[in-house]
């Protein structure tokens, strides 16, 4: 009798659920996209989640409130994979935030991305340098709004240790190599720490360092040809970069401070270098501005949380130029719209504006930087980020996206793997020939 009662309950409960699911269908069908709905919903889809998601939402919260909009953001750590599923399935958001230009160009090629309207295209033209505009341009039409930027190639160090050793920040690559030798002679311990581990993307911190060196030593023209596949991995500019970095990264006297031998670079997670850097075990490490976010969970030798400032416990300088000109390699987020509703177009225009750029850099706790020319740098409280923004805004700065991110995916993966092999002791010429061979699979 009891069993029958349970069974009856199960059947009626599921029947009720089916009815509910049916009854939600028309209401969800009617609620989106109809003019006059209050408030209008704009769906935004991007990679940032957790704290970064809250910071993005904060950056446009004031605009949404002033314009009576409900901006519904969905974060997805697997954005890069899932956006193509959504595009193929015709289930696109109103706006997608692309973390790199290669993926975005593939999306534009599907024909589902709406070109910017004239007003927004003009705003982008006014607020961004040619280097940035060209990443969102296909066949002369502007499709994307650059929003945030990331500057890679920062060398992190401890100002107090530098003072103690009586050394200063180097101005050229040669000075950096000399500085390394000087620190080694003073401490008699490994100088640099590095971590190339990043799950299935292991190797990227290494490929970034190679690319920074190529951009700085061979110049943007050679760099662009290399990204396009016209300059081979086995050619001199690339081989020179490996040799130059090998002087540091393959030298057991110089690495891997706080972790072990040269091979431990591969097994160390890219973010873990923050720990020995904060404690003073590691004197120098090359990582992007976002390393700042990882110092929160570290401790200095004295047991306090390190302060990030020019006179604090940790600080960073840009990788000194190998050639003459200042060049920055980095990344950036772009917004592209799949909907041409007026509210979406207006929101895109806001994202391109100096107002949103100022809002971004003043979000509490955030480490956003932007290349928007209309941004007011004086509003940035963090001196490191302010410095990065100034460098990005400078029209004399050459900016390029990370070489790996701009190459075809198979080449990028071969490049990652080649760098890992190179650290593990594979002969440089062999490793480079293997990476170059991946172009045949494109």
């Amino acid at each position, binding site marked *: 009798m009891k069993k029958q009662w349970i069974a009856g309950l199960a059947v009626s409960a599921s029947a009720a659920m089916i009815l509910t699911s049916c009854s939600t269908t028309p209401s969800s069908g009617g609620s989106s996209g109809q003019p006059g709905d209050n408030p209008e919903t704009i769906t935004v889809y991007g990679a940032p989640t957790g704290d970064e998601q809250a910071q993005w939402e904060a950056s446009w919260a004031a605009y949404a409130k002033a314009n009576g909009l409900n901006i519904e953001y969905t*974060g997805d750590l697997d954005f890069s994979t899932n956006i193509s599923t959504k595009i193929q*399935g015709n289930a696109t958001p109103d706006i997608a935030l692309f973390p790199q230009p290669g993926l975005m160009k593939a999306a534009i090629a599907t024909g589902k991305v709406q070109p910017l309207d004239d007003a927004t295209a003009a705003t982008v033209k006014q607020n961004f340098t040619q280097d940035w505009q060209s990443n969102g341009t296909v066949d002369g039409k502007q499709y994307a709004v650059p929003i945030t930027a990331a500057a890679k190639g920062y060398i992190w160090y401890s100002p107090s240790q530098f003072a103690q050793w009586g050394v200063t920040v180097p101005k050229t690559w040669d000075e950096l190599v000399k500085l390394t030798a000087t620190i080694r002679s003073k401490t008699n311990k490994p100088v640099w720490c590095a971590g190339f581990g990043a799950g299935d993307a292991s190797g990227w911190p290494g490929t970034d360092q190679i690319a920074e060196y190529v951009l700085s030593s061979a110049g943007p023209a050679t760099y662009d040809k290399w990204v396009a596949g016209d300059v081979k991995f086995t050619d001199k500019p690339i081989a020179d970069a490996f040799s130059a970095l090998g002087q540091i990264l393959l030298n057991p006297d110089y690495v891997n401070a706080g972790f072990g031998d040269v091979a431990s670079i591969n097994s160390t997670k890219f973010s873990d270098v923050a720990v020995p850097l904060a404690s003073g075990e590691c004197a120098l490490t090359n990582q992007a501005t976002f390393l700042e976010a*990882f110092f929160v969970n570290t401790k200095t030798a004295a047991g306090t949380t390190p302060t990030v400032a020019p006179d604090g416990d940790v600080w960073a300088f840009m990788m000194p130029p190998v050639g003459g000109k200042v060049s920055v390699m980095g990344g950036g987020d772009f917004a592209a719209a799949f909907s041409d509703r007026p509210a979406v177009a207006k929101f895109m225009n806001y994202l391109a504006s100096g107002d949103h750029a100022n809002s971004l850099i003043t979000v509490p706790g955030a480490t956003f930087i932007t290349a928007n020319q209309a941004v007011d740098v004086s509003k940035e409280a963090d001196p490191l980020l302010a410095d990065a923004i100034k460098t990005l805004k400078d029209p004399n700065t050459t900016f390029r996206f990370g070489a790996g991110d701009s190459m075809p995916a198979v080449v990028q993966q071969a490049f990652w793997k080649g760098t890992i092999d190179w650290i593990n002791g594979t002969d440089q010429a062999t490793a480079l020939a293997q990476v170059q061979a991946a172009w045949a699979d494109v």
Partner: protein
Amino acid sequence: MSRLTSVAGSTRAIRATHKTLSSPWATAGAIVIAALWTLPTFGLFLSSFRPAEDITTSGWWTFFAHPRVTLDNYAATLTATSGITVPQALINSLTITIPGALIPITVALLAAYALAWIDFPGRHLLFVAIFAMQIVPLQMLLVPLLRLYTGGLTVGGVAIFPGFAANSMSDGFAQVWLTHTMSALPLAIFMLHNSLSAIPTEIMEAARIDGAGHGRILRSIALPLAMPTVASYAIFQFLWVWNDLLVSTIFTTGKNAPVTKILADLAGMYGQQWHLLTAGTFLAIIVPLIVFFALQRFFVRGLLAGSTKG
């Protein structure tokens, strides 16, 4: 006579197996395997009570040398947000999982009954076809299902299904329920069909002679007899849906995300907050544990269903 000997033989075999399995060596082996299996979970459990900076700098086994206990991870996980908070995500998980388990079981029960006890032409072929559907991996369904949900289905100018909305990003839970139902049905129908077709024909015929229709037979005879299978499949389906990340990532929006997605998101873009995952995992495990222990007596019976017939 031959039947008797075979029964005696199988009894002897059962006794022999029982003896082998309860020998001290087998028991010791089982304990070692269980310990090895549990060790990572145990390490995670210890980690969830360690301070964030200990978790990121040293392994959990160092806990015994320097025991420092804190509830900060749990407090931080309960208040951290990634669009929504973890408690909100737990409610979303229940909203997704309960219908996600009940709908396929209900549909599968009806289908399995029809395939087992209603004689219509082509039913065997249909059963094999349904079972063969299991070969299709879920990943292959994502794009076609998204197209169906957003664009609807029109055959020869006749709109059969209008689609949920012009824009799937602002939808409710219906897409997730339907997707879980579709991917669950082949196995559910197969399991329930096996269980229902094992009911002796005499019982069914007696019920029919007494004037019971199909509805009455299903409710009063088939379902009670198949209850262990229904319950064990319910546990399976509940756990699958609860632990699912792929379907919910593709088919839900930020505010409807289940706890699996929020946990993955909490670690942050560069994994800088991954210590929150330790506590989050144990918060997410509570509901499946309750379900498992509440239904576990059915679970064992359901697993054995059909294997010891006779």
